[in-house]
């Protein structure tokens, strides 16, 4: 048993630093929430609380997708495009294809998996670096979507190229995805929570989750340990595509038509949220709760700043500054590398 264990010898100051790193980001979020709760009466209503979560749910879900790609050491820049694709495809299926919501959901989810598979193919088989591969997919998917819908937003009663009126419309069951609620909890919030819990469980509690991390942290070690590296990377990108299309479904249900510009603004926020998730809670690797928390912070800022009456551009600035403070807590005040000497001496002798 080693006596030279630096972890056990950590000083109080180090422990304080560790607490700051672990909870600093959470503290910033809580402080901001408290501030708005005190200054803005309309902030503290339950409607607002669920409203914020509902508003951020698509971003958070897309962010969770990016997070999944990050577990295997990659990133996915096509999530915004995939979500936008989902919006148009859902609209196309229901409005022009005259199908019910369930069919639209299935079609969209399959498309999401296919986009994920395309990314995986480019990265795993064609060996194109993830940033480049997913950037390319982004262009292709956006272009494909616009070609499919002729660059137009699909709405009910629109005139088709053959002069007839589109037969279908967004069905009520589909719109329920956004407008429904179970008790006081809106459906998108429930979906977000379920996905977060599932991903947390998958990543932290199952061997598949640990294998995903192993692939991301050291693919060669994972390969030598017999983990099917390529398979796990494929799964991660397909999962990411699936989550992006779920985000798109929620957007489609919210917008109620096949808005061509939907999803455009999703990418940067989704990536930001996933990156922030890495640092939140001092975990230092992609994780589900951190990502969700990062999304909540953005929602709180956007809502709170709006209530304060700040113009949109001051909100950008505020977002940057708050992000900065949170990052300073997570990185700058954290100790450098922890050295563990597990015990180079043997115990038996």
């Amino acid at each position, binding site marked *: 048993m080693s006596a030279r264990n630096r972890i056990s010898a950590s000083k109080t100051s180090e422990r304080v630093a560790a607490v700051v790193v672990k909870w600093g980001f959470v503290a910033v979020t809580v402080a901001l929430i408290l501030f708005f709760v005190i200054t803005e009466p309309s902030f503290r209503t339950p*409607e607002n609380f669920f409203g914020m979560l509902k508003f951020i749910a698509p971003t958070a879900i897309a962010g969770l997708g990016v997070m999944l790609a990050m577990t295997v050491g990659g990133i996915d820049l096509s999530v915004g495009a995939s979500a936008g694709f989902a919006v148009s495809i859902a609209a196309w299926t229901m409005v022009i294809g005259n199908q019910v919501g369930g069919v639209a959901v299935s079609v969209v989810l399959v498309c999401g998996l296919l986009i994920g598979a395309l990314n995986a193919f480019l990265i795993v088989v064609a060996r194109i670096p993830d940033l480049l591969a997913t950037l390319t997919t982004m262009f292709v998917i956006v272009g494909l979507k616009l070609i499919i819908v002729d660059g137009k937003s699909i709405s009910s009663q629109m005139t088709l190229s053959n002069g007839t009126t589109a037969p279908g419309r967004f069905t009520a069951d589909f719109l329920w995805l956004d407008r429904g609620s179970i008790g006081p909890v809106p459906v998108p919030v429930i979906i977000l929570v379920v996905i977060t819990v599932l991903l947390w469980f998958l990543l932290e509690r199952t061997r598949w989750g640990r294998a995903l991390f192993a692939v991301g942290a050291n693919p060669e070690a994972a390969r030598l340990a017999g983990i099917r590296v390529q398979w796990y990377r494929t799964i991660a990108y397909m999962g990411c595509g699936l989550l992006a299309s779920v985000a798109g479904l929620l957007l489609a249900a919210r917008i109620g038509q096949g808005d061509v*510009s939907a999803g455009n603004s999703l990418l940067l926020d989704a990536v930001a949220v996933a990156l922030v998730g890495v640092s939140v809670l001092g975990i230092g690797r992609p994780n589900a709760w951190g990502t969700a928390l990062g999304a909540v912070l953005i929602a709180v800022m956007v809502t709170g700043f709006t209530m304060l009456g700040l113009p949109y551009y001051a909100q950008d600035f505020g977002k940057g500054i708050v992000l900065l403070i949170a990052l300073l807590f997570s990185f700058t005040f954290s100790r450098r590398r922890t050295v563990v000497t597990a015990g180079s001496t043997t115990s038996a002798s």
Partner: protein
Amino acid sequence: VTGCAQSSGTPAATSGASTAPTASAELPAPFDGDPVTVALVRQSGAGDYFEAWGAGAEAQASFANIDLQVTDARNDNAKHASDLEQAIAAKPDAIIVDHGQTDTIQPLVTKAVEAGIPVVIYDLALTDSEGVIVTAQSDKSMAEGVLEQLIADVGEGAKVGYVSATGFAPLDRRAEVWDQVVADNGLDVVFSTGEVSDSTASDNVPLVDAALKQNPDVEAIFAPYDEITKGTVLAVQQNNLQDKVKVYGIDISNADLEVMNAEGSPWVATSATDPAAVGAAVVRTLALSLAGELDETEVLFPAITITQEFLAENEVTNVTELRAAEPSLELSDVVVADWLPAVSG
């Protein structure tokens, strides 16, 4: 609220400072007590047009003791829906919805009306506007006005180009007018290009540039959105075609006036409302309705066509001067009351 102080650089407030109108009567109920809370739910507040529109609305609101709670979806329709939903949940005294997609906003407007909240919409096409006050600047009249000028300048059957994008409600409405005018006058459309992006003006330059290289004999270009118009003008100048090609745009701002007035500018005519005046007029419409003094349920703000010559003759270089030269832009006799003069301009 705070935007008011910061918007002092806009034409609206400046004019307010110079020709400060005063009310000739006390504010009636409900404006005579605590501030009336109104949610202004905007699809976008970015860009010169929307900036000025918002500033006008704010100026008029503070005059009428209205606390304007502005949300800006930054062209994200999903956020627009969320904003409106949250606005309804906050139970304000009234809601103004600025632009938006029909299918997205319709159910929420219905919800608001059912919740008993007065709703005014601006430039938004609803399928069911029962109980809603509709205001609009008429895209149709704007496009018609400037295209009339185009036909007058180049005649029927001319070679023309078109720079616009699809998928944006106002542009789609202007496109309908364009298609009609092309058909009626036998125009020869030699190219159609254009896009709306995060940097619309500069991103359209290469597109129009390529189109012009291919069709240098084009006589006129219709670019029905000022950001696109600016990009088009740059491309024309880059190809040294400003003497041969005339550009027709829509909307007006200080920045646009600078471009139109520039030596040898090909931008010969535009059709416009004064966004600040329109923003203020929308707020006035709401105020009159809350005070029970509004008779109509639909208010349209007329557009005027402005030509390069008009600007030169009147030495107009910015929106303030334009307003002076063309007072009808100020909408000073549209939806006003003795207690509620037009404040934006």
